[in-house]
């Protein structure tokens, strides 16, 4: 249940932004969560419902977007999509020497403010 602590950090950032831009309220929040972030989008959504109470983001629409897991092979240079989060080998040559291109995002992507 670390989603609540994540949300606390998120709310700090969002309300700080709203203040900086002298917004009346926050209309929409978009976060990107990769499958390898270790965060359940629907748990984060419920955490948001709790954390937003009494803040400028109380009525904000909360959107979570996912991204595919993509790996770049350091051996054959292929870029492939991983079939599941526990299989991150190269899709071409099966090498374990890969690096993640996307899939572990835990990002506050966008905030829409009403002025």
């Amino acid at each position, binding site marked *: *249940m*670390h989603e609540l602590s994540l949300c606390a950090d998120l709310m700090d950032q969002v309300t700080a932004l709203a203040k900086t831009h002298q917004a009346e309220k926050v209309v929409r929040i978009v976060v990107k969560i990769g499958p390898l972030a*270790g965060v359940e989008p629907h748990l984060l959504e419920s955490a948001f419902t709790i954390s937003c109470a009494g803040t400028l983001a109380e009525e904000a629409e909360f959107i979570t977007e996912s991204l595919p897991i993509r790996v770049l092979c350091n051996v054959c240079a292929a870029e492939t999509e991983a079939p599941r989060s526990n299989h*991150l*080998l190269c899709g071409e040559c099966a090498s*374990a020497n890969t690096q993640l291109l996307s899939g572990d995002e835990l990002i506050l992507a966008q905030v*829409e*403010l009403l*002025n």
Partner: protein
Amino acid sequence: MCNTCGCNVTDGNRHLLSIPHQQKSVTAITVLSNLLKHNDQQADQNRASIESHGVLAINLMSSPGSGKTALLEATIQKLKHKLSIAVIEGDLETENDADRIRAQGVQAYQITTGTACHLDAHLIQQALTHIRLDEIDVLFIENVGNLVCPASFDLGHHRNVTLLSVTEGDDKPAKYPVMFRASDVMLITKTDLLPYLGDFSVEKAIRYQHELASQAPVLALSSRSGEGFDAWLQWLEQEVSQHKIRIQQQQSIKPTIQAEGQQLHQQEPVRFRPVARA
């Protein structure tokens, strides 16, 4: 330009609009910051203060009861005359683990998290004020026993050690990829129990770990019998000596996975983009 009212709506940003053409103006701000920005900033401060004392910080993560405290007790016993160690313990309740460590004659500070299932950088910052860093080489942080939550939080440490005890089954890396992918070294513990289990395959556990594209070494050991312990001590001593060299050269490291993530999501500056005007 938008044909209706002359606002800045284009085909490129139209989809960003949630409340088009209303009386007041909506401003969309592209942020692209880590959700855990505040935690990560605190973690970087912790790391800097730990490094200013030349100390290496290691985070231990596993399910409850995998043998984290037992590993620390045995490690302290075996390295007593070579390395100076301190431990920060994280548990929901009790001072038990810190008491066990103090019984080995080293500094220990217990964090009790109450209901929180993981440690975070702010908890570590407070705990650090209770540790005499200038007296030690290595600071172990024993995280709360949990295979999910601790993996998301940078504490300001340098290396992640994950433990998988043989009674948990060999497929844990496949079931908890986020946690085990974070390993800088993975320890298969309680190997003295292998003869009683029969179906735990060390090879299978290694294969599941390999499928996470993890470059971390996998070491099998028993804190009880001491079997396989030398390879672990060797890994640890090597990390300590490499760390001392890095510190002399004023270099810093993060756990492999956090460093990778940072590279992947190079923070862009906050951009301010008005998309609608009344």
